[in-house]
């Protein structure tokens, strides 16, 4: 019982920190593709008097990454005005230039407005049209979820760290006397902290395995049956085998810092 209690008191806060970290990684992966989807669904159409190159557009706003000129013949075809070949040519000459713009990333609504305003400053540009249907509502909901989730992760990590600090005080109480005696008899820093290091390493490995197992279950049971498109579309991103190593590394780093701080603070009487 004492053994379990001693280990649980470190494993619990470590799992809290690792859950926070893994949630952050998973959230980052799943939202990345969602952001790309939002970005793809957003298009900006520009009408200009004279022909413009990508560099001309970039000179007005650096967020513009790709420019595709829409062929006038195709526009006329869609308008069903390509029957008469002679008229078609004159129509084509009288038409302005149409461009579809792609941006360099997932921009906020404010940033998109700023791009439009920058382009409007050009006297060559006659009109700017955006096609975004639900972009703004999706973006706002997404931003809210992202903010809530990140706040939750930060909160969880802070709680985890406080619990680890508490555990360090307990370690200090439990191990200080032994380490002081060993120091008097000439034990090196490593030898003095060996017992604590072994215990902390075991707890770090257990915590990483438990957290990985939780996410494996989350991926294979909950996500599979979930109706959430964002998760179902990115089921492979929910948990990857390589995450075990990330969690193990993070877990060992946290406990080693904690052990080091305890050991260097034990002073000989």
């Amino acid at each position, binding site marked *: 019982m004492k053994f379990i209690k001693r280990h649980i008191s470190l494993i619990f806060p470590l799992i809290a920190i690792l859950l926070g970290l893994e949630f952050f990684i998973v959230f980052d992966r799943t939202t990345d593709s969602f952001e790309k989807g939002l970005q793809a669904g957003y298009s900006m159409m520009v009408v200009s008097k004279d022909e413009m190159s990508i560099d001309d557009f970039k000179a007005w706003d650096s967020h513009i990454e790709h420019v595709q000129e829409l062929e006038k013949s195709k526009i006329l075809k869609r308008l069903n005005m390509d029957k008469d070949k002679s008229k078609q040519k004159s129509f084509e000459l009288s038409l302005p230039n149409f461009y579809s713009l792609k941006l360099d990333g997932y921009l906020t609504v404010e940033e998109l407005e700023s791009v439009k305003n920058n382009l409007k400053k050009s006297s060559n540009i006659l009109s700017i049209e955006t096609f975004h249907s639900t972009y703004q509502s999706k973006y706002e909901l997404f931003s809210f979820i992202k903010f809530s989730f990140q706040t939750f992760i930060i909160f969880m990590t802070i709680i985890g760290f406080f619990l680890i600090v508490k555990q360090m005080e307990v370690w200090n109480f439990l191990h200080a*006397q*032994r380490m*002081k*005696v*060993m120091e*008097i*008899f*000439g*034990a*090196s820093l490593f*030898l003095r902290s060996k017992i604590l290091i072994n215990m902390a390493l075991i707890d770090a490995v257990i915590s990483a395995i438990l957290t990985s197992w939780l996410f494996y279950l989350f991926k294979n049971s909950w996500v599979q049956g979930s109706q959430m498109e964002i998760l179902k579309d990115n089921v492979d991103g929910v948990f990857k085998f390589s995450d075990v190593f990330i969690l193990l590394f993070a877990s060992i780093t946290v406990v080693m810092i904690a052990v080091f701080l305890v050991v260097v603070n034990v002073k*000989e*009487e």
Partner: protein
Amino acid sequence: MPNVITANNLTLGYENDKEIIRNANFSIKKGDFVFITGPSGSGKSTLLKSFYGSLIPESGSLVVGGLDMVGINTKNLQELRTHLGIVFQDYKLINEWTVKKNVVLPLWISGYSIEVQDTQAKRLLHHVKLSGKEEKYPLELSGGEQQRVGVARALAKNPFLILADEPTGNLDEYSSNVIWDLMENACHQLETTVVVVTHRIPMVFNIPYRHFTIDENGSVYEVH
């Protein structure tokens, strides 16, 4: 006989505190048995602490086992300590370890094999009259028995110097006699240097000894 401890104008004190030992000059040779006495608070334990590097001299010089304790580095200090036997009034045993594990601590630190540790533990516990208590924990023993474990630990690696701070301060007569016998034997038979801080020199002592005293001003004298 070569000097094991040499102090020249040795001054000791704690940070932001007055000097406790002032300008002490003495030397202790291999095989000497030395008692250090003095009134409470005179600096007996402080002087002993400086011998195992727990307190660094403020000024003067102190050489222990050929190592200058002023500016000694961690590696040398650790090496020196593995060749010392230290006994404390409050025993300083590791309560979550068995008696056997406590006794062989200096051997474990120096990387001796399990076989050597077992043999030494058996021999030492027999010497301190604690055979059969190898697997007990310190808190299951009486104060006298705990101190005998402390002495066994100090003797575990046949140190060249034993430092004892009030080793019989809290003990009954039987345990005190066992401890004095062990220290006398270590000094007489193995030529181990023994330095004991005490309030009172035992009435019956079977080997020649030297007696240093510290007065209230922190001066160290040898009593002849």
